[in-house]
């Protein structure tokens, strides 16, 4: 039996949350549901599992890399390119702290930014399932179901206040 993806558009969070609950009752698992919205809607509001993200781990990794790069710049390279200045240490600690701090923060910020790109698969210019009404404040719920059950799901979600339900099609954004 082949599956199909349906797209239901809701006016507000409340009917969308009720509809997701109904989908759960009808046997659709969270892995087969996706929600699109114009503002960040907390997962608790929709009764959805906490979405996974690697951004904070990547940020931490970047910070660690930056820390060691800062150490290398300040305490390593002066021995590679020695610039002796009378009466001064080659690798003094207090200025080194400044360099290490700046490099730690720079790498943390860069890796956070790159983390968003990696986790979200940006940039992505291929055709995607989307509905432009979400930028008007509406909420779109995508879910996969058996093609034979399409009518059953459509009727159920119509009762839950869906504005429109149609098969989702990938489109050029």
């Amino acid at each position, binding site marked *: 039996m082949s599956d199909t993806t349906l797209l239901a558009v809701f006016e507000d969070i409340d009917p969308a949350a009720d509809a997701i609950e109904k989908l759960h009752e009808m046997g659709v698992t969270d892995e087969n549901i*996706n929600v699109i919205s114009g503002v960040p809607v907390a997962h608790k509001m929709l009764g959805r599992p906490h979405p996974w993200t690697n951004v904070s781990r990547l940020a931490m990794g970047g910070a660690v890399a930056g820390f060691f790069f800062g150490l290398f710049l300040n305490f390593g390279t002066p021995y590679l390119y020695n*610039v002796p*200045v009378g009466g001064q240490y080659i690798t003094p600690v207090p200025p*080194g702290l400044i360099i290490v*701090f700046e490099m730690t923060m*720079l790498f943390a910020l860069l890796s956070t930014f790159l983390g968003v790109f990696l986790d*979200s698969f940006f940039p992505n210019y291929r055709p995607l399932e989307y509905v432009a009404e979400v930028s008007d404040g509406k909420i779109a719920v995508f879910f996969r179901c058996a093609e034979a059950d399409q009518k059953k799901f459509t009727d159920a979600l119509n009762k839950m206040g869906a504005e429109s339900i149609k098969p989702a099609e990938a489109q050029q954004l």
Partner: protein
Amino acid sequence: MLALMAILVATCLVYAWGYMISEGLGVAGVMRPSYWGIFLVNTVFWIGISHAGTFISAILRVFKAEFRRPFTRAAELMTTFGLIQAGASIFMHLGRVWLAYWLFPLPNERLLWPNFHSPLMWDLLAITTYVLGSTMYLFLPLIPDLAMARDRSTGWRKTFYKVLALGFRGTEGEWRHLTTAMNIFAFAIIPVMFSVHTIVSWDFAMAMRPGWSSSVFGPYFVLGALHSGMGAVAIVLFIMRATMKHMDYFIRKEHFDALGKLMLIVSMAYAYFFFNDYIVQWYGGDKATDDLLHWLEEGPMAWMFYQLIFFNIILPWLTLWNKKIRQTPWLLAIIGLLINVGMYWERYLIVPVMLTINRMPFTWKLYVPAIEIYLTIGTFATFTLFYMIASRLIPLIPVWEVQEGQMVHTLRKVGKTSVPTVSEFE
């Protein structure tokens, strides 16, 4: 207006800078004893302006101050565009700009290696970190609004927004990654912001020079930066509200009221550090410092000194306690403008004037700017031009953040009145 700014940029920045590059720094007014002139005044000034974006966007985001929402983007743009002017001013100061890469740690056959013990090297790294960080912090919250613009535009604009929106749809995962990154940025960019202006202050404070060698210079500079930045935000918000359609819906009087309160608080904190810096130097009794203070209070630049005290401290204290004044956008903008004039004078006194009044009285010769005046006008025109172009290309109001704010706001009945409440969203 756009054309006028473009002409100003072309003549005062591009032509004047090109002329200075071809003729050498001799066409500028910098000379012994004041080798640091207006270029570095402009650098400090523009970095100060740039602090408003981070303060409003990051600190107020961390503290969940709801009134920030409509003007975070205007402030973030100010950060990025201000830093571009600060960077350009440093390059102007370098003179031989084509050798700027000597500052970077690039292994080369001449074994030329930057000295990481120098505050100027700290400056390079701190400003680079801040420019990159604040630009990324500007772009991340812009992505959902670019996607919204993509859905509503046609022609070349559609292509422009499509490319910049990166394929954003607003899925749960995308929002999660984006909001997590924005939270990390909000927390991480605050210490970077503090570090940048502190390090800028160390360019001066690390030297054993009257007026400069002060341990409170770091926080004093940071407060000064916030002071000028808040004032600049008031000016920009007033101009946006007066010139763009429907802005009075988004930028309301209560936003100016909140901004005015912030300006008053920052002014008080600034006064505290100003007095701290002054009293210690005044009490110290060092001959050269006494000469400098005497010069500031009674010399030819005394008018700058008194204007800085009046515009930065007395004026905000006299006016901003009044709610009517705070809620009158044009008045708040004028106060913001005067604060910025005062802050510019402060930086002018710190850079060329304090360099002039040194421990060798035979070198005392007041700095008189020459081509620097055109280049200064050029940086202001470039900042304005960038802002005008941005206002035509990107939403200056962070639409999704305002929508999110409207979702969490409710009116709750308490006794006989209704009070606005904000629910926790996360």
